[in-house]
């Protein structure tokens, strides 16, 4: 019988340091075994448990899109025991991976509609996945608007891609930083304020919000004010996780487990759960 | 020099050599070990040195974790009472050890495995004596089996 606790081996193909402080690094991993590659079917919004034998496991959202073949991308912030160790990984090293886990953004429901993506900080990972996915199936979707904020220009991730996205005409990317900095050409202000100011239309639109808890907390009322219906406000939650398959019991919000019922929830649903937000 | 180093005499008979952690304070005992070195005083090569700012820094947990993770003995050495670089670090350490040592013996850890000494920066020879003594002592009681992780299975 298949043992779901055993991670599959992945090889580190590429390591990119995202910020000058070196707290954020992006890893491109490729499958060591072909059979694993074939079995690994995922959609934007899902996550994996990355495993360093001897150190432990941590969950990370998948930043690559299923439309990009042959590798999986993860961007990892150095905060604890496991992430510290992950930051020591070099090209060619092996890591373990379990997944894909959790649910995904309702990309099928988005079809034919406009999509607004609101992101903050290094939580842009699964949003990148979503964006790449939408762009790969561009004809299926209406307008795509992105509002992406970071504390300062250094803390944006995927800076090269941001540049190319800024140039694209079939989507709108708004970048914002918390406080003005010399030479900054884009918006300034916290994500909720900038969102309110840009006022993306709620007409035939879905909005996906992902970022630090405070940002989500203050952005949701803005979106409601902009008349986005609760069932079309989608967010992704984070909780401490271990098993990732709905068994170990720690990531619950009410009766729902973030690891298996989530991490993607609609605001309509979250409003029924008092401890969710 | 202590004559008749038991370890070296019996080395041929058995392959096992005790592995001992020596936790030395930066200001006295570490300097003492240094002096032993530069003075070319021979002592058993069984110790691994961990330098700490002061014997007062030594948490009993360090000692227990060392035994748990494979050291056969632990030596803690600091400045002589009254000589502490931080004035009272070794007095505090002494109280901790005064409780720790009998407690470990009480639960059945051989007394020889965990020892304490005061060695000053000028006592290179004494450092060698201390290391020789603990090495011989630990050798006599044999490889650590109690409190070693993974020996008693669950």
């Amino acid at each position, binding site marked *: *019988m*298949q*043992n*779901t*606790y*055993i*991670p599959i*081996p992945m090889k580190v193909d590429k390591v990119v340091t995202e910020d000058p402080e070196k707290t954020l690094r992006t890893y491109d991993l490729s499958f060591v075994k072909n059979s694993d590659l074939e079995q690994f079917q995922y959609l934007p919004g899902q996550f994996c448990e990355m495993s*360093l*034998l*001897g*150190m*432990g*496991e*941590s969950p990370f959202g998948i930043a690559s899109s299923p439309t990009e073949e042959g590798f999986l991308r993860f961007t990892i912030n150095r*905060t*604890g025991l496991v*992430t510290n*160790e992950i930051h020591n990984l070099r090209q060619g090293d*092996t890591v*373990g991976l379990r997944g894909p886990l959790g649910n995904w953004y309702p990309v099928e429901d988005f079809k034919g509609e406009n999509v607004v993506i609101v992101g903050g900080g290094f939580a842009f990972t699964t949003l990148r996945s979503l964006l790449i996915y939408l762009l790969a199936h561009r004809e299926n979707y209406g307008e795509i608007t992105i509002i992406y904020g970071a504390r300062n220009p250094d803390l944006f991730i995927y800076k090269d891609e941001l540049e190319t996205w800024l140039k694209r005409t079939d989507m709108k990317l708004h970048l914002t930083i918390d406080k003005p900095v010399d030479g900054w050409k884009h918006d300034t202000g916290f994500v909720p304020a900038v969102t309110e100011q840009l006022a993306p239309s709620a007409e035939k639109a879905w909005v996906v919000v992902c970022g630090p*808890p405070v940002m989500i907390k203050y952005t949701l009322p803005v979106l409601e004010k902009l008349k986005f219906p609760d069932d079309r406000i989608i967010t992704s939650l*984070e*909780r*401490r996780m*271990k*098993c990732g*398959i*709905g*068994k*170990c*019991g*720690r*990531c*619950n*919000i*009410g*009766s729902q*487990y973030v690891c*298996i*019922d989530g991490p993607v929830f609609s605001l309509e649903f979250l409003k029924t759960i*008092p*401890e969710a937000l | 020099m202590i004559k008749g180093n038991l370890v070296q005499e019996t080395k041929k008979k058995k392959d096992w050599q005790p592995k001992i952690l020596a936790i030395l304070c930066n200001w006295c005992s570490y300097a003492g070990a240094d002096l032993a070195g530069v003075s070319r005083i021979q002592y058993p090569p069984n110790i691994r040195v961990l330098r700490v700012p002061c014997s007062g820094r030594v948490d009993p947990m360090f000692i227990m974790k060392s035994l748990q993770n494979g050291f056969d003995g632990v030596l803690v050495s600091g400045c002589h009472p009254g000589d502490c670089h931080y004035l009272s670090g070794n007095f505090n350490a002494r109280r901790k050890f005064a409780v720790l040592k009998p407690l470990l013996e009480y639960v059945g850890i051989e007394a020889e495995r965990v020892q304490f000494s005061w060695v000053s920066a000028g006592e290179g020879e004494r450092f060698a004596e201390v290391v020789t003594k603990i090495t011989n002592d630990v050798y006599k009681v044999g490889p650590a089996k109690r409190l070693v992780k993974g020996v008693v299975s*669950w």
Partner: protein
Amino acid sequence: MIKIEKSNFVTFIRSLSAEYNLFAPTGEGRQSAFREVKDIKQINSQIQITHNSPKTVFLPQTEILFEFKGDDIQSVQKATKPMFFWGVRSCDARGLNLLDKVMGQSKQRPDDPAFQDPYWKARFDDAIILTLACNEPASTCFCNWTGGNPFSKEAGDLWAVETETAYLIEPISEKGKDFIKKLSGYHTASEKDEQKIKALKKQAESCLQPAVDTKTLKEKLPKIWDDPLWDEVSAKCVNCSACAFICPTCYCFDIQDEGKKGKGKRIRTWDCCMFPIFTKEASGHNPRSLARERVRQRVMHKFNYFWETYGESLCTGCGRCIRVCPVNLDIRDVAKQLLETASAA
């Protein structure tokens, strides 16, 4: 229903050993537990209910998920004979079924083996559970509050009743039917025996306190989510995990790596929602940092969340937590208080 005279009990038990590893209540007082029995003398049939639930066998406190050396991963699962559990009380048999819903199956991804626990399945799927009716429930027992009964045939593969002279056994599940089919040489129970069972059942039920229906907590608890009552209820709790660890249905666990980089094992070990670190994230943020939130979590999980997901109570009324709680935080009192407050709300 077949009848095994107590004089034949030894023969019956011996006949099991060829095909099964036998587990039965052993030990005394706080050391009583289900253990593998090699000698029939180890079985302690005087135990009303074991201090440790049979959970400890199916979901052991600690187990190795796999061992690793370098990048090489070795599963440590070994095939053994299936287990035969003698003398599980109905509350515990029910507990095992509830655990199976979480560990062995997956409500959210029912057909995907990646969401089933292989270690649980290896033990539970082939095991035969004999549910032994509880002739004399303890004063802390309250299975009747949670929809159970000391003579319940709801869970297990076989159901048995102990009389003065014999064990009367009948199958519950398909597995149980197959088991009984293979047995030979035992008499069928008589009308008189059936009468006896009825009398015993009545007597057992009379040991229990009048039932309080905890089912209604399912609807009622969300209404009092923020009620100050939670402060009162959790005031004396010291947040240890004695209740959770002896609970037949608490399944939360932690996954840890032991050893060094390059060589060691990944283990899982029981964890408990009463500990602040249970939910503490690497960033330092803790969604359940207060004692009241953690007590609420445990109570809600038993009496509300599990209902919502699986349509059942996660408390089986075995009463173990009542006996071990160091501060006598009695779950029955908690349930009563909550019901009162919620009904008034």
